[in-house]
């Protein structure tokens, strides 16, 4: 068992345990902060998968942007001082059945499928490759994404200040 394998198991454990806390914690603030560790663990998995640029992007956008937005959402919509920030759960038994069915099906498919794994090619840096592809093969999705972001942010500002 190499060092990379040990690092993988550590990050996988961090990710899964904190995701469990996100879903099962009674307090929404604990869920939000636990989501931070999930994102960190996923970023670590990206590094192990040779996706260094995406790991940094994950930290910048998810931890730096989306999580802060979520915390703002929690604090602006719950009375932090007076009432305890709790969120009820309903229909636990059907949800458990559905979730177990989904997880079981996914795991079964992952297990029985004979995945064709290619050997790792030599590559220089993922960031420069991604930049090249964004300017050549993926130019149209890239431009569309920029327009989508602009429209989404304008729309969010419009909706929020009404």
């Amino acid at each position, binding site marked *: 068992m190499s060092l990379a*394998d040990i690092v993988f198991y550590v990050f996988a454990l961090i990710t*899964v345990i904190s995701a469990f806390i996100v879903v099962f914690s009674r307090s929404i603030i604990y869920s939000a902060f636990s989501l931070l560790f999930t994102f960190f663990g996923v970023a670590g998995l990206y590094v192990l998968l040779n996706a260094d640029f995406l790991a940094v992007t994950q930290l910048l956008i998810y931890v730096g*942007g989306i999580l802060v937005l979520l915390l703002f959402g929690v604090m602006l919509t719950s009375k932090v001082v007076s009432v305890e920030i709790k969120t009820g759960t309903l229909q636990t038994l059907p949800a458990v059945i559905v979730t177990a069915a989904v997880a079981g099906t996914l795991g079964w498919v992952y297990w029985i499928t004979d995945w064709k794994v290619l050997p790792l090619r030599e590559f220089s840096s993922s960031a420069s490759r*991604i930049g090249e592809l964004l300017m050549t093969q993926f130019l149209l999705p890239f431009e569309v994404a920029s327009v989508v972001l602009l429209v989404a942010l304008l729309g969010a500002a419009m909706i929020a200040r009404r």
Partner: protein
Amino acid sequence: MLPEVGLTHYLFISGLLFALGIFGVVTRRNAVMVLMGIELILNSANINFIAFSRYGGMNMDGQLAAVFVIILAAAEAAIMLAIILNIYQQFNTVNVDEVSRLKE
């Protein structure tokens, strides 16, 4: 001893995150919690994309798809929080079961 890490390990992690995200979306009544469940699901999809990109011989298409997923997740979070804030002003609650009217 634990087996050597391969593609299946990453797929199992992503499947577990996906199932947990579904569970969060289905059971939680707070709209912000539903949003967190959606973020978990998007992260699990990203792990799949990048794992297949790595084990498909460092094919960069998977990583590009993950970049676009992250972009759309950011846009979606911003809009959903704006909507949640509006709902809170109108109804004084963010319980998705109680918010059943689109209009006053």
